[in-house]
């Protein structure tokens, strides 16, 4: 489990990183915290000829704030977010989600940009930040562009990033003061990847649910928006429906047929339903808390 040989290049800034990528061509990979890439390279599932290391690019660890949003540099680690060392525009959701990513050692090195670029739908940031209507800020030698996360993920480990592009930041709109959130991760063991991951946010206006967002991770190759569950909440209010009702909506949303599923698939669907239901309950607790 040792990687194949590669050349190592250390970027000193976002600009130097994209310049390196342009120069090195298609067999180069960007490394951020390395928490996903290094195990893959050690198992020789990926053998890039060149690694472009962003660790020395201090400008990627910065952040900007405006009235409407917070822009976090791609090299912000999960630990920095967990510890509140960067602003959280989502009323505490980002801090809470960060604290459940792997183990603290992983959080010390893993980054928000790396997580989004890696695009594993079982990870926290793709689903959480999609639910927050965030956008990826992407740079190449040709310039900078923004892609809403709802358009960013194409499939497992596959995103809108071109080979010569680096995700340099993520722009996150501020939550309104009355927007509550629920976040539930279901896993077999503390610290492991999610078997199911649900994010529920809405503006709580008296007893009504306004502008809900319900997103589900670890169910498909990309995070999934559950418009059917959003409609349930808008119509019926913030109380959690029974698991079976949630499950029926999810099955419809994912175009799955309960009767055609084998026991393992049914259990997974059940876990998703329970996770989403529990996230709805969690949002109520956050509201009351």
């Amino acid at each position, binding site marked *: *489990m*040792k*990687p*194949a*040989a590669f050349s190592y290049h250390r970027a000193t800034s976002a600009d130097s990183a994209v310049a390196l990528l342009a120069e090195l061509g298609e067999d180069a990979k960007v490394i951020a915290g390395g928490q996903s890439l290094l195990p893959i390279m050690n*198992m*020789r599932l990926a053998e890039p000829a060149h690694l472009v290391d962003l660790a020395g690019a201090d400008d990627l660890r910065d952040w900007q704030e405006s009235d409407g949003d917070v822009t976090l540099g791609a090299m912000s680690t999960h630990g920095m977010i967990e510890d509140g060392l960067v602003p959280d525009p989502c009323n505490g959701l980002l801090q809470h989600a960060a604290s459940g990513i792997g183990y603290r050692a992983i959080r010390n090195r893993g980054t928000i940009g790396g997580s989004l670029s890696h695009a594993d739908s079982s990870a926290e940031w793709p689903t959480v930040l999609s639910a927050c209507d965030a956008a990826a800020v992407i740079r190449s030698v040709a310039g900078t562009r923004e892609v809403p996360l709802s358009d960013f993920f194409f499939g497992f480990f596959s995103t809108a990033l071109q080979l010569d592009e680096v995700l340099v930041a993520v722009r996150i709109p501020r939550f309104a003061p009355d927007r509550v959130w629920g976040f539930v991760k*279901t896993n*077999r*063991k*503390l*610290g*492991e*990847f999610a078997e199911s991951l649900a994010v529920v946010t809405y503006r709580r206006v008296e007893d009504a649910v306004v502008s809900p967002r319900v997103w589900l991770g670890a169910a498909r190759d990309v995070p999934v928006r559950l418009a059917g569950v959003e409609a349930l909440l808008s119509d019926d209010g913030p109380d959690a429906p029974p*698991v079976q009702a949630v499950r029926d909506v999810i099955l419809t949303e994912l175009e799955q047929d309960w009767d055609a599923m084998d*026991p*393992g698939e*049914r*259990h997974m669907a*059940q*876990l998703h339903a*329970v996770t989403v239901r529990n996230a709805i309950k969690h949002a109520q607790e956050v509201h009351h808390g």
Partner: protein
Amino acid sequence: MTDAITKRPRAQGIGARVLRREDARHLHGEGSFVEDLRLPGLRHVAFVRSQIPHGRLERVVVPPEAEPGCVWTEAELAPWATPLTATSTLPSYRTAPLPNLAVGKVRYVGEPIAVAIADSRAEAEDLAESLEVDIEPLPAIVDVAGALDPNATLLHEDWPDNVFARTEGDLGDVDAAIARADVSLTRRYTMNRQAVVPLETRAVAAHYDRSRGQLTLWTSTQTPHMIHDMVAEQLGIDGSRLRVIAPDVGGGFGAKCSVYPEEITLAAIAMHVPFPIVWVEDRWEAQVAMTQARDTVYEITAHADSDGRLLAIEAEIAVNAGAYSVHPWTAAMDAGMGAAMVPGPYDVQNYRFRTVSYASNKAPLGPYRGVARPGACLAIERTMDDLAREVGIEPAEIRIRNMVGPAQMPYTSVARKVYDSGDYPEAVRRATSLIDHDRWRLEQKLLDPASRRRIGIGYASFTEQTAHGCLEWASRGLAITIGKEGARLLLDASGSFTLSVGVKSQGQGHETSLAQVVSEVFDVDVSRVTLNAGDTSLTPRGDGTFASRSMVMAGGATFGAASALADKVLRIAGVLLQEDPDRLFFHQGEVHGPGGTSVTLAHLAREFLFTPDHVPGVDGGLEETFFYEPTQQTGTYTYATHAAVVEVELDTGQVRILDYGVVEDCGTVVNPLIVDGQIIGGVAQGIGTALLEELVYDEDGQPKSTSFLDYLLPGAAEIPEIKIDHMATPSPFTTFGVKGAGESSAIAPPAALANAVSDALADIGATVNETPMTPRRVWEQIQAAEAADASPSEVAS
């Protein structure tokens, strides 16, 4: 002499809570493992291993530019090393050699095919990748149905079928007992395959010193002398030319006490290359090629009267032993142990069993903490609970009614094991109060039936054979009869002790516990006793650390050597102090006389060793060697009852442990801190077996659980606070009355937790009889039971 030993209480002797001396270096990252070895010119080995579970190895093509001597296949290795064939005296047993490097066929994913050597592991892997390996796939055997199918592909083509061995027994009068039974229950239990997962994987290094004709082999092993003997034999060299060293070993649990082909292969190659070589197993290799465990199916039928008294037991046991048999345990080990342990701690004398140990395209099965006893315990203890439910009594009560009682000790079981001492029913009684049984029964009653949570209580009891002698191993059919252990104790001119033993700790704390035995005799601080273990050139012959034997065997040998040395020291002191040696005693590093005279051990030793003429009448040397064997060849019986309380979430099948208690008796406890550590560690591994760990294979026999992404181990968050109560009934047969403690607490957790989950789901009508009890498995049982409830005309699975 006993007076000198027992007269004064020892601060650091038997029973003392001494902090482990070895912990300091491990907690500071200053241990010294095989991987830490630094030798000039050391080069690294990567193995080419089969990626296919079963196939004909057609050819291995070595790139022509490969450095000479850096690629080895069986063709190059064969003149220098023969494969080891594990043998058994069991009449039905079939043998097959365990190849050092594959030839003709490959029979499991991970089987070694070739060796690649380079300056670094990464470069060795590059070289390994450059070899072309042609394998023609054959159908893979993964389970008993596949193995025993009359048209099955044969793993070993000179065998008539895929069976290593079958055994059977018909004891007492089972049919008569069946005729008078009021209740008969048949149940089937599956314990799925596990990896062993020591923190340190295997590692082997070898260096041949041409100037002296000496081969040194470093290996992370529990059994250095056994490795020494077998490597010398397979290489055809004199044992005096081979030195085997096990440095710090980071866990073994049974996966490091077999003779591995990698050990033989590296030793042989080292003699024919001009540089030392090292192989450090990576985690993928460990998950596919280290010996694996469990993988058993038990079908039990229990016959009882209406009071729940067991009249007879019938058992059918199938063990998936993997592709090869390992030395010395053989592929028949689990089945033999399992069959003997099914009767458990119960007074039942009618028993019929049949076992089959079959071959499959998986890694060879080997020992793992508890060895078959967890599977046997799951089978009999789940059955006892179902029996209790059937006759309408509490599970604790049915155990007390059926257990061998203290007045019956020693008791010869139907499987001819001699249970030597203890109070099994008392352990059950204490277990119920340890977890506050009545409180949880009340909580169960108070739960709203519409709630989606359930609470359950489960017990599991067992008795296990530890530190057995030669005759017992012979009765199991092993080619070697393990039953003696050596210790050498030396007192030097500075007054410190060097204790050399044949066992090898992989975390058992021998540097402390065996030093406590010396301290019990001489009343010295344990820091004055240095332990030599693991180096065959420095230690007397011993069999190693496994089968929960070390404290009894090495402790007994240490006591024997210490007693003989103490005798001599008192005679020397008698001369120096001008006193009758029978009136002298040890106290805090000195020898004291009745009138207040004294001499320190340091002064005594220096005087005797430097100027022996000052001590006439005493033979030279201050060292004694003693070989111990147990007086009772069938071993000494450690027993326990575990109690578990769980909460089950009906919507997901998730199981949460609310409380866990252990009432155990391992005889006299030498170091309570160490024994508690063993109990907790064993329960943790048992929880892994019960809830988390499983080696999964796809339908083509490909292993899927090859990293910790898929293979889940219990971590600190999965292990509850474990309540422990010790009964400490001394064994009548061993030095100080100790019994084995290393494995026991891994035996009961799967049974206790399965009983607790089944108790929780009893009102729904669901039970769980397969481990690990993953949420999916538990939920499927709940679904099936709830469906049967909703529409009784549909039959649930």
